């Protein structure tokens, strides 16, 4: 398995598909559009199938990197180095799993420049997978930042009315963080003489003060990506203007790159600084959970509401990561994966009704249940998962995070648990106003229920959300070795340091 360079194949296969679309001979518009769609779909499906081999060959008993590849490039300046461990493998899987659905979802809703859209999407897939697999900081930086470009294009070209404003806001925010991260990476290189993550983490012996600055530099970049309060305002705008599949990728995967960054860089490289700033992160997380839940409640735009709820859920993730204990780390990885499925499903749902009615305003809906009963069932499952009802995957992560937080800070856990109440409030109000009630908008009477294509998208997601809610051990087993390893490493590094000053 190792000699196959499986990770490289998975990473660059979508790019290959994109090249094919790009180079395919010019034909009649209709035909070339259809060809590019099916080519993109098959590329993403095959990528997913290949990635199943990854899952199959993955040894969950080992905490170190697997499927490891290393080539020295650029005159020895940096290396091309890939590998996955328990923390990253599932993000790769999530990406490859969701991509075919995204392409399916844009089947009819993207009308112009279809080829370019498909190319942008496949390139995006390559970059995202690359981000999760790179073990060289420069390589990581390249992937991590390049993701911005196709996403910027997707929002800016195929977006809604205020697409340019949103795209620039998105770009501006993320760029701010990345400049600082680049500086920090250069510092790391200067200090250790290597860009390889493994070498850096072994050789790194930083004085406290510089550790703190480096941590902050990385933090800026990841916090914007996640996004944490108060740098979250790009997200609702980006979501509102992005096309459905763009929103899905944004919410389900792009946000996770921030959380992944914390787990891969901030915690293992700068344990003391992480520890020092943990109360700060806790505070921001708690504010995120409560503040954005309240803001979500008063939104009039469905997509904005879900976007704000994403920020609240990401608040749980940062809370979990910075507890430094096994349950917290596992809980936040689980929360990220589960949110990947749930938010994807919710955005697909919104896309489905948007395609029919062309409005995102909550007040234009109501009474869908009698016209679209199947849609109502799916949307109910996803809403309940978003509310973290036990039996759905949303519960497992939040529960683990709450109990993990409780062992560190009682008051933070209590505040975080109020998210239980607040998410129910905005979630149920959204559901009631969209699905229940009398039909006030006459055009709703003319709508049709889910098409087979839409069922094909929603059913696997619903199944997985419930399955991972009832039997999470299948996932937790994969990530436990690596997260144990991480929390042990932190314990060791923090030995002799006072327990957290927060209560």
């Amino acid at each position, binding site marked *: 398995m190792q000699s196959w360079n499986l990770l490289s194949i998975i990473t660059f296969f979508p790019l290959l598909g994109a090249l094919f679309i790009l180079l395919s001979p010019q034909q009649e518009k209709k035909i070339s559009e259809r060809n590019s769609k099916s080519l993109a779909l098959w590329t993403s499906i095959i990528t997913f199938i290949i990635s199943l081999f990854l899952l199959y060959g993955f040894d969950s008993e080992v905490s170190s990197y697997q499927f490891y590849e290393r080539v020295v490039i650029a005159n020895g300046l940096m290396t091309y180095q890939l590998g996955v461990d328990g923390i990253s493998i599932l993000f790769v899987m999530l990406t490859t799993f969701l991509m075919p659905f995204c392409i399916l979802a844009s089947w009819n809703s993207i009308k112009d420049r279809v080829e370019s859209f498909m190319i942008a999407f496949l390139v995006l897939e390559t970059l995202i997978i690359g981000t999760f697999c790179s073990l060289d900081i420069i390589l990581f930086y390249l992937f991590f930042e390049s993701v911005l470009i196709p996403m910027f294009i997707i929002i800016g070209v195929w977006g809604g009315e205020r697409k340019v404003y949103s795209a620039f806001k998105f770009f501006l925010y993320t760029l701010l963080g990345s400049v600082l991260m680049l500086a920090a990476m250069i510092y790391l290189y200067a200090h250790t003489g290597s860009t390889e993550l493994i070498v850096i983490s072994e050789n790194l012996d930083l004085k406290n003060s510089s550790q703190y600055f480096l941590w902050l530099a990385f933090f800026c970049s990841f916090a914007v990506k996640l996004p944490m309060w*108060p740098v979250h*305002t790009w997200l609702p705008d980006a979501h509102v203007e992005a096309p459905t599949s763009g929103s899905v990728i944004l919410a389900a995967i792009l946000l996770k790159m921030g959380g992944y960054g914390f787990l891969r860089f901030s915690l293992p490289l700068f344990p003391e600084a992480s520890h020092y700033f943990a109360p700060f992160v806790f505070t921001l997380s708690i504010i995120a959970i409560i503040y954005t839940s309240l803001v979500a409640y008063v939104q009039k735009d469905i997509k904005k509401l879900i976007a704000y709820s994403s920020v609240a859920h990401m608040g749980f993730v940062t809370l979990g990561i910075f507890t430094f204990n096994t349950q917290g780390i596992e809980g936040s990885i689980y929360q990220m994966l589960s949110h990947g499925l749930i938010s994807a499903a919710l955005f697909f749902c919104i896309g489905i009704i948007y395609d029919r009615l062309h409005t995102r305003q909550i007040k234009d809906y109501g009474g869908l249940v009698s016209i679209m009963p199947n849609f109502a069932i799916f949307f109910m499952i996803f809403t309940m998962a978003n509310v973290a009802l036990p039996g759905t995957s949303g519960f497992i992560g939040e529960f683990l995070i709450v109990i993990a937080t409780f062992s560190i800070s009682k008051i933070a856990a209590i505040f975080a648990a109020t998210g*239980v109440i607040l998410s129910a409030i905005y979630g*149920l109000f959204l559901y009631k106003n969209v699905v229940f009630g009398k039909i006030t908008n006459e055009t709703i009477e003319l709508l049709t229920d889910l098409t087979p294509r839409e069922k094909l998208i929603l059913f696997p997601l619903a199944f997985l959300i419930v399955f991972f809610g009832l039997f999470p051990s299948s996932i937790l087993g994969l990530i436990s070795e690596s997260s144990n390893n991480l929390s042990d490493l932190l314990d060791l590094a923090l030995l002799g340091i006072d327990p957290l000053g927060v209560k």
Partner: protein
Amino acid sequence: MALFFLVFLPLFSALIVGFFGNKVNITLTHLFSCLLIIIPFFISSYFLNKSLSGDFNFVFPLATWIESGDLVTKWSLKLDMLTSVMLVVVTFVSSLVHVYSIGYMSHDPNQPRFFAYLSFFTFAMLILVTSNNFLQLFFGWEGVGLASYLLIGFWYKKDSANSAAIKAFVVNRVGDFGFLIGIAILYFSTKSLDFDVIFSMAGELSSKTIPILFWNFNTLNMACFFLFMGAMGKSAQLFLHTWLPDAMEGPTPVSALIHAATMVTAGVFLVARCSPLFEQSEYILSFITIIGASTAFFAATVGLVQNDIKRIVAYSTCSQLGYMFVALGSGAYQIAIFHLFTHAFFKALLFLGSGSVIHAVSDEQDIRKMGDLYKLIPFTWITMLIGTLALTGFPYMSGYFSKDGIIEAAFVSHTGGHFYAFYLLVISALLTSFYSWRLIFLTFHGKSKVSKDVFSKIHESPKIMLAPLLILALCSIFSGYIFVDYFMSHDFEFLWKSSIFLAPDNHIIEEIHHVPLWVKLSPLVMMIAGFILSFLFYIAFPFIPGYLAKSYSPLYKFLLNKWYFDELYNFIFVKNIKRIGEFLSSFGDKKIIDGFGPDGIASSISYFAKQASRLQTGYIYHYAFAMLFGLTIFISYFFLRG
């Protein structure tokens, strides 16, 4: 294995009916879902029989649920005395409600959905009572909450039903928040979520403290307090009770099953299940006693003046749940469960009876528009009478044993506030009798106030609805007498050993048999007094209530508006949450964050760009001056540096 089928047959039924119910004959759906609930009833009767004949308990493991670090929780089914009583109550009432719904819902187009929800509810409730750890209990707990939400909002076109459903879910979530914190505390201090492990460490917990902010709290008290908060939400105790009366927006069979007999008693079950914890937490026991008694009294006073037949019964439920909590707080856990047991029968009977009345008078629910119905629907009348007698504690009916037991337990108990509870409960007994008879008199007796066109259509309900009424009526008469010894006699205490923990100095089951005569007689006297008063008010001198309402108008309005709890909560929470949300959204996000963040930067950049572009005037002497100016500064700088 039988236990497995018992629990999962209803789930199976829910899934099959939910997905395929629309595609087959409706009779088949009815038969299928009733059968898959009646079989579990027979299995549970078998289990109860075994439990009653000796110490019978086991745990049936299913699968691993969450495994993370040192946290391990498993799916498993537990059976002991407490569980078998609950199993019988749940499956019995659920079976009858399923059967009754065939008649009651016969005109509804969405019947498969209704039956699927009912069966799903039954499954979640069974999971709840058979759980062997806190997390699975929480799973069932939220499952019944979901089912309740779906069923209250079953008629989704009614706006009031939707709001009631959300209110129920959200208020319950406030309780669940407490439950979750309670679980977190227990896990934090025991590193386990299993009942056995946690209960065996109860003594240890009572000597530990937990720091929150600047204070140290006793771990056990804290855990019990938060767990009880969960129970308050689910069982609609004072302050978290507001959802229950509104929940009456759902179909009546739902009210009978979920909001009278089973789900709302989950809180009582929780406290009884956690008796090893609560029994050692004196303060929380007192707290439970006081909350319970206050709820019993509060709900009874509100019940006095309500006019909606279902709301009266709902407030009565709320009040009776208060009785159960007083029993728990007094340390008489079995008696609480006993009252839960008998209450399930007569309250389900009253609800289903009300449903039959509503059915008869063309969906009218206001008892002021009824009257003199007893000749027209005699069967319903008689069963409602039986239910009322059982509720008010007529001698040798079921409520007589359990309710009097609670009042006696409150008298002899040693927990703080038990006298407060005792007196309030005695007064509530008077109120209960009064409002119950008021309901009977206004509905079935006196002058008929039914409008003409409705009157001509009044008819007795079909047999399929009357049969459950008959069975429940028989249970309301006999269940107390038959089972009293198992719950309240000292001889059978050994049956409860494995499920309910009593502190060594808790001899309450023994002591209630030695209360003074006046205590024993007080509920009876109150019941008779309530009946007489009600008779005087509504049959003999029907002008009295109107006169009193007018002359004590503020008090009347206070009661009619349910002590203004809804208005208060609306004022404090509902409006402010919206207001804060708006504020944060428009001010926090837009003005502050965006204003100083991206928009601010963007606009200031364009501002500076404009300023810069103004410099480029195009006049040569401007440039020349600028160059000269710059040169001067440059040269002076070098000169000054030396």
